[in-house]
């Protein structure tokens, strides 16, 4: 179904701006709403519109391609421009779709987690976060990226801190995140500054052109690149810079965790791709060195170490958070190899992992909602007390491991194949080892949930207490989606693989061998 045919003309023309302006505007309005119901309805409605328009724009882009959108009619080098292309369109769809999915879940969850007074501002902050993320992805202006990065980050700090009514540790985590996030943003903006010094422009396309003319530029652009990599590395939780992530994921409100886990680091990864391959280019010796030695190396180290750390966590949400760091390692590995196939695999894993982790965190959230549990030891007998939730968790967990016929398998095999084809056949071994570690940390939860009997309360075994439908629907949507991708039902796998191959060929400037599916 091609949604773009049903959309009004102006949406196609002004779509890129609409995606940012709508949530920004509605955030301001939602913040002053009196009732939480109205705020929820508005936010959900806004995310629904965002999903529809993002899908429509992506489809339009796929069919016709899109021009650069000029804000206020100012031409690129001086004005701010926005652009939707094969690289950004899927990420836009992903962000808006995850926002909608978690919003459906949020209705019962926020009731339990957020104080009544703070609910409307909570939704406003959520909208701001969406606006920031969408803006980061859609903008063509390097400084604008920083602005939107800060918009999303600051609203995220607020969202994480709002978890304090559930767990006071959220405050410390939010504070840590704030400090490190600010350091990251500062590094990033320093990098942009250096880059401006070198090229005299802030427009990405211009920067790329000038850097190519200068053949990589002087030391200034080298330093700029270093700062940008570290700044973005912090945001995307590259291995040694991930320390903010477990706390933030573990103590944020459950909806926020699910949303952040599936979008925030992904948007930062998108920026890494954009900066490394568009503005800079792997043709520059220093970019190539960073890709091979740093991104690839840290990817592998992260894959193993973070997975090991995940095994030893007692809190299930921290475990998944460390697993996220490990999974980012996979994507970095794909990026580091920097062939079209590996980039495509990394991009595919980015999307698949967002779906899987979203589903897993939603399931964990539902468990907390019903029983107030987050520790793995407390999951005893959950297969009996919450069979449907545990079912979704199991499916997503299998997908995270990479069991055949799940989304995780598709992208891991693609990654392994591209690594072998790229000459890094030993990296296949690391992928396998890390998958075994995933078997252990997911299996640990499943063993407790399936093979131990439910705890007894006052001498009676705990009775069945399934999550409400509004929680089950989103998490099962994610679980089934991951299965659909794994088994190529409704061509789900073909669509995603096609999209990531397009994105990858855009990045390397080649046509993908055998593009079709």
């Amino acid at each position, binding site marked *: 179904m091609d949604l773009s045919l049903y959309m009004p003309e102006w949406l196609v023309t002004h779509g890129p701006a609409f995606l940012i302006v709508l949530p920004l505007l509605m955030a301001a309005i939602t913040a002053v709403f009196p009732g939480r119901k109205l705020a929820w309805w508005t936010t959900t409605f806004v995310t629904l519109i965002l999903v529809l328009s993002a899908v429509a724009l992506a489809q339009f882009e796929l069919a016709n391609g899109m021009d650069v959108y000029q804000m206020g009619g100012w031409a690129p080098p001086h004005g701010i421009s926005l652009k939707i292309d094969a690289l950004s369109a899927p990420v836009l769809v992903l962000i808006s779709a995850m926002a909608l999915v978690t919003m459906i879940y949020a209705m019962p969850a926020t009731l339990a987690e957020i104080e009544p007074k703070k609910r409307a501002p909570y939704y406003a902050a959520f909208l701001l976060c969406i606006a920031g993320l969408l803006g980061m992805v859609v903008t063509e202006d390097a400084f604008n990226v920083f602005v939107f990065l800060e918009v999303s980050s600051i609203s995220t700090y607020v969202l994480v801190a709002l978890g304090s009514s559930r767990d006071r540790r959220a405050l410390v985590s939010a504070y840590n995140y704030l*400090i*490190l996030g600010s350091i990251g943003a500062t590094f990033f903006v320093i990098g942009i500054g250096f880059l401006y010094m070198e090229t005299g422009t802030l427009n990405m396309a211009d920067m790329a052109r000038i850097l190519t003319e200068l053949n990589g530029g002087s030391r200034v652009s080298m330093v700029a*690149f270093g700062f940008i*990599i570290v700044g973005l590395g912090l945001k995307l939780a590259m291995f040694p810079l991930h320390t*903010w992530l477990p706390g933030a994921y573990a103590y944020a409100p459950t909806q926020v965790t699910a949303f952040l886990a599936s979008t925030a680091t992904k948007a930062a990864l998108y920026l890494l791709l954009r900066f490394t391959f568009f503005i800079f280019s792997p043709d520059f010796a220093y970019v190539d060195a*960073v890709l091979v030695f740093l991104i690839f190396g840290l990817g592998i180290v992260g894959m193993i170490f973070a997975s090991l750390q995940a095994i030893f966590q007692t809190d299930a949400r921290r475990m998944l958070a460390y697993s996220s760091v490990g999974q980012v390692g996979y994507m970095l590995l794909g990026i580091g190899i920097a062939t079209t196939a590996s980039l495509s695999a990394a991009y595919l894993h980015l999307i698949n992992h967002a779906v899987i982790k979203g589903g897993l965190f939603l399931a964990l959230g539902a468990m907390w909602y019903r029983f107030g549990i987050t520790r793995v030891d407390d999951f005893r007998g959950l297969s009996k007390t919450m069979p449907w939730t545990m079912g979704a968790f199991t499916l997503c967990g299998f997908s995270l491991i990479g069991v*055949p016929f799940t989304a995780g398998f598709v992208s891991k095999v693609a990654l392994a194949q591209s690594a072998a084809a790229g000459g890094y*056949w030993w990296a296949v071994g690391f992928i*396998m080892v890390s998958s075994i570690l995933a078997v252990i940390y997911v299996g640990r939860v499943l063993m407790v949930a399936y093979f131990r009997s439910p705890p007894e309360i006052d001498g009676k075994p705990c009775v069945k207490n399934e999550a409400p439908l509004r929680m089950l629907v989103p998490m099962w949507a994610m679980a089934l989606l991951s299965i659909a991708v794994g088994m190529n039902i409704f061509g789900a796998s073909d669509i995603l693989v096609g999209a990531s191959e397009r994105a990858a060929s855009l990045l390397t400037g080649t046509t993908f061998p055998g593009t079709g599916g």
Partner: protein
Amino acid sequence: MIDLMNINPGLWIILAGLICALFPKTDGTHYIRKVFLIAAPIFAGWLIFQMHSVEPEYIRGVLNFGGIELTTLRIDGLSLVWGYLFCLAGLINGIYGLHEKCRITDSSALIYTGAAVAGVLAGDMITLFIFWELTAISSVFLVWKGGEHAYAAGLRYLAIHVFSGVLLLAGAVMVAQSRGGDFTFNFIGLNTPGGWLMMIAMGIKCGFPLLHNWMQDAYPKASITGTVILASFTTKFAIYALARGFEGVDILIWIGAIMTCFPVFFAVVENDLRRVLAYSLNNQLGFMVCGIGIGGALAMNGVVGQVFVHVIFKGLLFMSIGAVMYRTGTAKASELGGLFRSMPFTAVLCLIGAGSIAAFPLLAAFVTKAMILAAALEEHLWVPFAMMLFASAGVMEHSGIKVPHFTFFAHDSGRRVKEAPWNMLVAMSLAGLLCIVLAWPWGGYELLYSLMPFEMEAYKPYTWDHVVFQLQLLFAAIFAFTLLKRFGVYPAERRAEIIDSDWLYRRLGLNVALWTSAMWDRLNFQVNRLTKRSLGQVGQKLYQMFSPAGTMSEAAPSGLPAVLVAGTLLVTLIVIYVLGT
């Protein structure tokens, strides 16, 4: 809608297992499970027969899956033998377990059997991998059913087997890569690193030296029926994969020869008879691996025949020791003895099994083992031949003499128990009968020959020289046993844990891990103390310099991440400057 002829027969056994698993667990329902347990292997065997009679090279169930072509069903000469064999073994095991009322054992036995059948009938490496893992996951429950002391062994078993599957998949991907995306499972060879990975994966599953520990670890700890079932499938599945993928790979000759010899020494000192049998199993697998390494029609037919009779006589031995254990509660040689007074039928059947494994004329292995040995001689592989001959004497020692002697004869332990239950006797008799039939000189072993996949001039086992020299070896072994026993040189059985190379991870590795973790904790503590102290000093200075109110130094964020950020930047810049220019 569903075409029976297009679906891998193993899947029906798996389906039966799933039905059993979901069947309500009330009194009396175990009869229905038992019906499935008997009927499913028969049905699958019948299906394989039907399919094979359509055409000799039966390939169906081709699925295209994300650009990978899967062949989910392939029945040719090689896989046919294993298909029949596993169905037969499933049937015998089903009869043997009739007295048990355990839902987990029944359903996991069915799923495990089905996965093994489906695995050998798989035509591509991805399907093979899936069932490879499924055999591991479904069978671990049989280990865990052995009781509390089997839990850790089960975990190790699972971990090792899942790891083997992962290696298999990694190897398969790499092999397919080198062939341009062709995942068909045929000869692989060792030309690619992927081939090595796949061979190691198979080596783990069929107990290559130093990769064998899971077998002697898990099998003796499983439940009584569990051990019998476990011993039938996993390793033989791996032998199938080796025979398919690595026929005539020279290194396997030596691996196999070593594999026949080393378990002999462990078997002679081991007290737990089920563990003795596990070592003996490992030694038998050595013959097969060696045969695969030699390659050629004679050796390969020998391997195929050896696998077929091996499952039957090894099952018979495990079943008879299992029956003894069922009645007496133990399988330790030091605790048993003189049991033929109580269990005469079991004793006779055990002797048939022992005679078969030792390759007495008229009993099963006499025909097939000779084929492998003859192939080694024809190739003039003297040293491997001598090693296998030595191992044959060893087989006679531990399986042929030690197991029946210390269980049923030797000194009387004073245990007076009932004869084995009827269903066990039926299952054992069936196996015992097959042991005799498949080596019967007048028309019996030709039955076995009719299954053998490779064209060749029929090997004649009952020649004067073969019978006579085999008897020389066996008589000499018995003579040595009686002589050594008479002079008291033969060591008495004593209760002990015999350590094998798994000591390296069960003891040494564990202790190293514990020590490292303890040291890590200490280090962390010290580092924390030091950083606190030094940060505290810095903080005090900052306090003195900047903030008389003293609030700033208190609120400093955890410093480590910030240091990490700075460090990463430094490393990045070094990479850029040093490597990038």
